[in-house]
């Protein structure tokens, strides 16, 4: 009996293992292979670090910095918006909580491209906002094509990824802790800072990673909302593959981006462990 169950258990994992090897491990090896090779004039590949050293000499460094800065700002804005929202949600009746969480997730049922395109229509010089301004006699303003528009696009698209983990962790906090804090003389702010915040830190950390990682590698939002004027690392990688056919440089950039993200995750995990050991 016991033996059979353990067989079933391993068998259940096989499809997933096959899947991961085929679609995660093998592609990653390809990325590594392309990043560490260069194409010879006769079409053959040879091992070389030339791509990685080229990163330093060409002007990719500012692009990395730019992507990281945009992602940091977007993540912090998401956090500042999502944390109070998640807290407010947990204070609602359970039945209305479900409804409200569904509203938070609603935009995610639509495709990211469509959401971004809708924002373009709203912000365009002849879009909804500008038409309203014009109808009350104000001049039209250029809302697209600046850094704020790119940030807006990122925040809008990734906000649910911040709200959901924070809300999940917060709603599981035992209310007795809060009552105990009040009994021991904590006022509202002290309860928030010294009880709720540490207990919900794991949600905050997983929210931050879930927003930061897609924002740092985003490529569509910056092109559309920034009118193609703010080049992110994702845009650069896309161009290497789609129009320059430089698979080696594209793979190198992707590899560097992945390493950066892994470093960020490792740092975040360290913080997470200190604060009581939670998984991201």
């Amino acid at each position, binding site marked *: 009996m016991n033996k*059979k169950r353990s*067989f079933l258990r391993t*068998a259940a994992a*096989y*499809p997933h293992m*096959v899947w991961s090897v085929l679609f995660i491990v093998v592609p990653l090896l390809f990325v590594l292979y392309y990043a560490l090779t260069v194409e010879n004039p006769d079409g053959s590949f040879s091992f070389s670090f030339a791509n990685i050293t080229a990163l330093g000499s*060409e*002007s*990719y460094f*500012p*692009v990395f*910095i*730019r992507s*990281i*800065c*945009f992602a*940091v*700002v977007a993540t*912090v804005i998401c956090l500042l918006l999502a944390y109070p929202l998640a807290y407010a949600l947990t204070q609602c009746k359970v039945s209305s909580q479900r409804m409200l969480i569904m509203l938070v997730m609603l935009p995610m049922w639509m495709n990211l491209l469509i959401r971004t395109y809708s924002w*373009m*229509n709203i912000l*365009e*010089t*002849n*879009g909804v906002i500008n038409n309203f301004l014009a109808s009350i006699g104000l001049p039209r303003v*250029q809302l*697209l*094509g*600046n*850094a*704020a528009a790119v*940030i807006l696009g990122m925040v809008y698209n990734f906000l649910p990824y911040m709200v959901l983990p924070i809300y999940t962790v917060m709603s599981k906090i035992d209310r007795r802790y809060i009552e105990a804090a009040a009994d021991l003389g904590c006022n509202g702010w002290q309860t928030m800072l010294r009880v709720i915040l540490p207990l919900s830190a794991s949600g905050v950390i997983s929210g931050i990673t879930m927003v930061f990682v897609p924002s740092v590698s985003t490529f569509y939002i910056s*092109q*559309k909302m*920034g*009118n*193609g*004027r*703010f*080049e992110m690392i994702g*845009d*650069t990688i896309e*161009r290497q*593959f*789609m*129009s*320059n*056919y*430089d698979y080696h440089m594209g793979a190198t950039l992707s590899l560097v981006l992945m390493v950066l993200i892994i470093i960020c995750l490792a740092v975040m995990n360290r913080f997470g462990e200190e604060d009581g050991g939670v998984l991201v």
Partner: protein
Amino acid sequence: MKKRVFSLLLLCFLLLPLLCSCADFSPVKKLYVYNWGEYMSLEGGDDLHVNHEFEAWYEETYGERIEVVYSVFSSNEEMYAKMQNGSSKIDVIVPSEYMVERLIKEDMLIKLDFDIIAAYENTIEERFQEMATAPYCVPYTYGYLGLIYDASLDNSLFDENSEASWRVLWNEIPDGTDLSGQILTFNNSRDAFGIAQFILNHESGAKEDLYVNSTDHARWDEAYELLGQQKDCLQAYVMDEIYNKMEGGAALVAPYYAGDYFTMVSVNENLRFAYPKEGTNFFYDAMCVPKTSKNQIEAQRYINFLLGGTEGESLDIAIGNAEWIGYSSPNVKVTTNLDYLADMTDDEEGYGEEALSILYPEGDIDTLLPMVNAYADWRAEQDEDYDISDYEGEIPTIDLFTADADDFTTYIYQNLDNETLEYANGRWEALKLSSAPAGGIYALTGVIVGVLLLILVAYILVRRYRQKFY
């Protein structure tokens, strides 16, 4: 025992998709056509559906069923990437001229059999038949790049000789209007560089092409400098978004293809079109058959059908398709057809009076137009099943392709050699990497990092302070 049966079942389950994809169960032959988006009349109902017509015609002629599997791409590069990975089945592709050259060079196309594409000789305009690429491809459409602008600029964009210049995309407007933030340009290297190169070539006074297909790095640097100057007055680098932006009036000037101008003007009637004096890009998209195709004969029959050279109603289909696409047609049988000309200039069904002079800028449209109008008037009076041979008016014999090199300069993009291509891409890369200033974001990031550090320090200090009490 049970265990073995179970794992066998599991194995079968896992292999099922593999088995399915190997064995082709359907008896119907499939023809895979890979074309640009919105580039063939595929309407339902009473309107023309080219592929359904072909399927019906094919079954009638050859007694064999065939199914056209039609898919679309949005750039030559995308198509090339899909062809290169080799796994996809494609029988007919429609790349642009420089990509055709590239595919020929890389030995990816078959030499076409003009016994199968029998209509070729009598339908395709001579100019195309003389091209070096001719044995490998059959032109489908062609066209020119022009300047699309808002009617409010009608008086501003033109100089004293009433000529427009590509320089308006650099916010250099003859009457001094400021258009910065209202200008769009292409978000792909060849087209963006092209415009700068037309200007440079024109201003250098050279008659021949010194810049567009140059292999000289210094000439690419010049174009790169010029594009750098353009950056600040641009609203955006765009490709397909151009439709939305021009149709909605979000931008006032943009370069785009003549055929697509009609799509935009049908939404926003305030748009106008002009060919700048520096000359422009001449392009064609041509049907080719890849070497990997398993249905090469059928593919070539399909091409022949699209030319309208086969018996029956095939010419009507070629005409209907050309009218639907709205690009210039390289098919002489189509462009000399009075119905085609009358349909194109029709205000309601077609693209208006200006259609012919925009699509065929090299032809003598001034002489042609009265004849077309006379025919259109006659046709309006006939009942539905009129016969074109009853028409007694003058039938035009004007060649729409007469290249008049003196007042209309065109450049054709040739496939660049790898070394030049790499250099050009590098320049484009450098242009794109230098982004618009985003100082606010950097400052904000600095503040955020600072605040985080402060919190960390405060946290550690408070912790230490508290530890004293334990």
